[in-house]
């Protein structure tokens, strides 16, 4: 099942403000494959082209310039393609939640996409309820609240629920964990893992927080200057701290500790990526 590619990107280029004196190149030849049912991280410093890339995944930007994007076997440069079908399969949650809520009431905002799909009111209600439970919002107390009176963390949950309600096969989170408090962040990551493991949702996680990436994804792509510069399993990528530092990134703190210990002559058997793994490894050394 994992061998089936869902999103395939070939030599993709993109320029903003194309044809004007203010043209900016955002992508210069990206190659990437995302398989059905996996969880992938895309990391890179600001301006590396991550957001531009993921907007190609659901057809918000179409490959008009050069390169090829295949999503679920469909060529995204085809002008007759029904992008709405693709967007239902590939859900995208943006960076700033307060900028993507547009209805007056929380319930209406989450139901927006379902209404556009023409779903029956009763089924819609059930789906909204499910989506709100998934993100940890109480249906009865939140559905009639004004979206603009919510706190930042609640807005983020509503934005996520609005995308989840469409039951996408692929969920893309573009820096969606930045700016939440530690507990909210932990809860969100746990919910994403549930979605991934229990519902088989493919996760694409764009982040500059190495801890979150390490705890969530199986594979990592590193981007810099509009290109993919490193890729591999999460462990392979975080085993190269010097390269990551060159691209303005780092490794999770636990992994950093392991690299430091190795440099001082105490190599750990396995490179830890999470605190739990780190504790296990250190415990093993202390006991031997």
């Amino acid at each position: 099942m994992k061998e089936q590619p869902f999103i395939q990107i070939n030599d993709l280029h993109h320029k903003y403000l194309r044809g004007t004196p203010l043209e900016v190149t955002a992508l210069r030849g990206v190659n990437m494959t995302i398989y059905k049912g996996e969880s992938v991280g895309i990391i890179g410093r600001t301006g590396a082209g991550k957001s531009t890339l993921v907007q190609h995944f659901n057809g918000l930007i179409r490959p008009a310039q050069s390169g090829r994007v295949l999503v679920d076997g469909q060529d995204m440069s085809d002008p007759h393609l029904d992008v709405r079908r693709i967007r239902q399969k590939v859900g995208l949650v943006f960076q700033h939640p307060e900028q993507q809520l547009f209805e007056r009431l929380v319930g209406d905002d989450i139901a927006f996409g379902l209404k556009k799909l023409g779903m029956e009111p009763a089924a819609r209600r059930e789906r909204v309820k499910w989506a709100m439970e998934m993100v940890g919002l109480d249906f009865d107390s939140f559905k009639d609240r004004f979206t603009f009176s919510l706190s930042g963390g609640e807005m983020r949950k509503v934005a996520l629920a609005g995308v989840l309600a469409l039951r996408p096969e692929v969920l893309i989170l573009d820096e969606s964990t930045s700016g939440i408090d530690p507990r909210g962040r932990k809860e969100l990551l746990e919910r994403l893992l549930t979605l991934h493991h229990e519902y088989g949702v493919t996760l694409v996680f764009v982040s500059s927080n190495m801890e979150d990436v390490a705890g969530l994804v199986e594979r990592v792509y590193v981007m810099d200057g509009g290109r993919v510069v490193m890729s591999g399993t999460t462990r392979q990528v975080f085993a190269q701290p010097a390269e990551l530092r060159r691209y303005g990134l780092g490794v999770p703190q636990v992994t950093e500790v392991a690299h430091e210990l190795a440099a001082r002559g105490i190599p750990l058997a396995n490179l830890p990526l999470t605190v739990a793994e780190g504790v296990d490894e250190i415990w093993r050394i202390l006991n031997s």
Partner: protein
Amino acid sequence: MEDFEFLRHITIGQYVPGHSLIHRLDPRTKLSVFLFITAAITFNISYTANTVLVLTMLLLVALSGISLRYILSGLKPALPLIIALAILQLLFYGEAYVPYGMQSRTLFHWGWIHITNGSVQLVIVSAMRFIELFFLTSLLTNTTTLTDITYGVEDMLRPFSRIGVPSHELSLVATIALRFVPLLAEQLEIIMKAQASRGADIAHRGRLQFVRSARQVSALIVPLFIDAFRRAEDLILAMQARCYVGSRGRTRFVRLRFGPQDYVAYALGLVYSVTMLALRHRFPL
């Protein structure tokens, strides 16, 4: 295919870095010449004068080093409006309009529709004027940074502060308003992308489905305004946090200075505009 990149189509107000002669002029010179030529354009109905004005604009564009294609790309979204206005003027304006300095002749008359030589001239000249003003505004804003425009406006209004005109505050208001245009375009892009991501049908909006497009626009306007107010509140806080008190006792790092090229450009602009205004008596057609 839908295109969410609105900034690509807004060329007015977008500074394009460069080192041309026009870029280097003092903003006060540019603003003054802008006003002179605007007057010349506004009060000219003759074909001759407007042809000269269009050619002048092309010359200025060449001098500015900004590509003509870029400026014209900003005109494209306005074309349907210009054409619709031209048709309405042509069909219904003939009866009431008496052209300056010439005999009114009816060219075509059927029911309400009344086309005279005057209304034909009005239509052609209006389109030319629109294009001239568009070029002029593009040139000013493409070659001058917003900061420079603000300083220019503030300095030019300063003499009026004696009679209580708050020149600094007025130019500040204008700057903030202009600064918000690209921000609103960006915000609109984000909201439309968020709606499209959740299945809003933005691609298939028919050109003639006015009611549907209007309803879709209203779904965008409300969040857009809420965001604009939020930004405005943030801006107020930021200004207060930095003890902004207006112009009182405030000095400035950049001092504008007139160079020889400014005197020349100023004089040329003034002479040119007066000549163009005089032309309208010499060549009424």
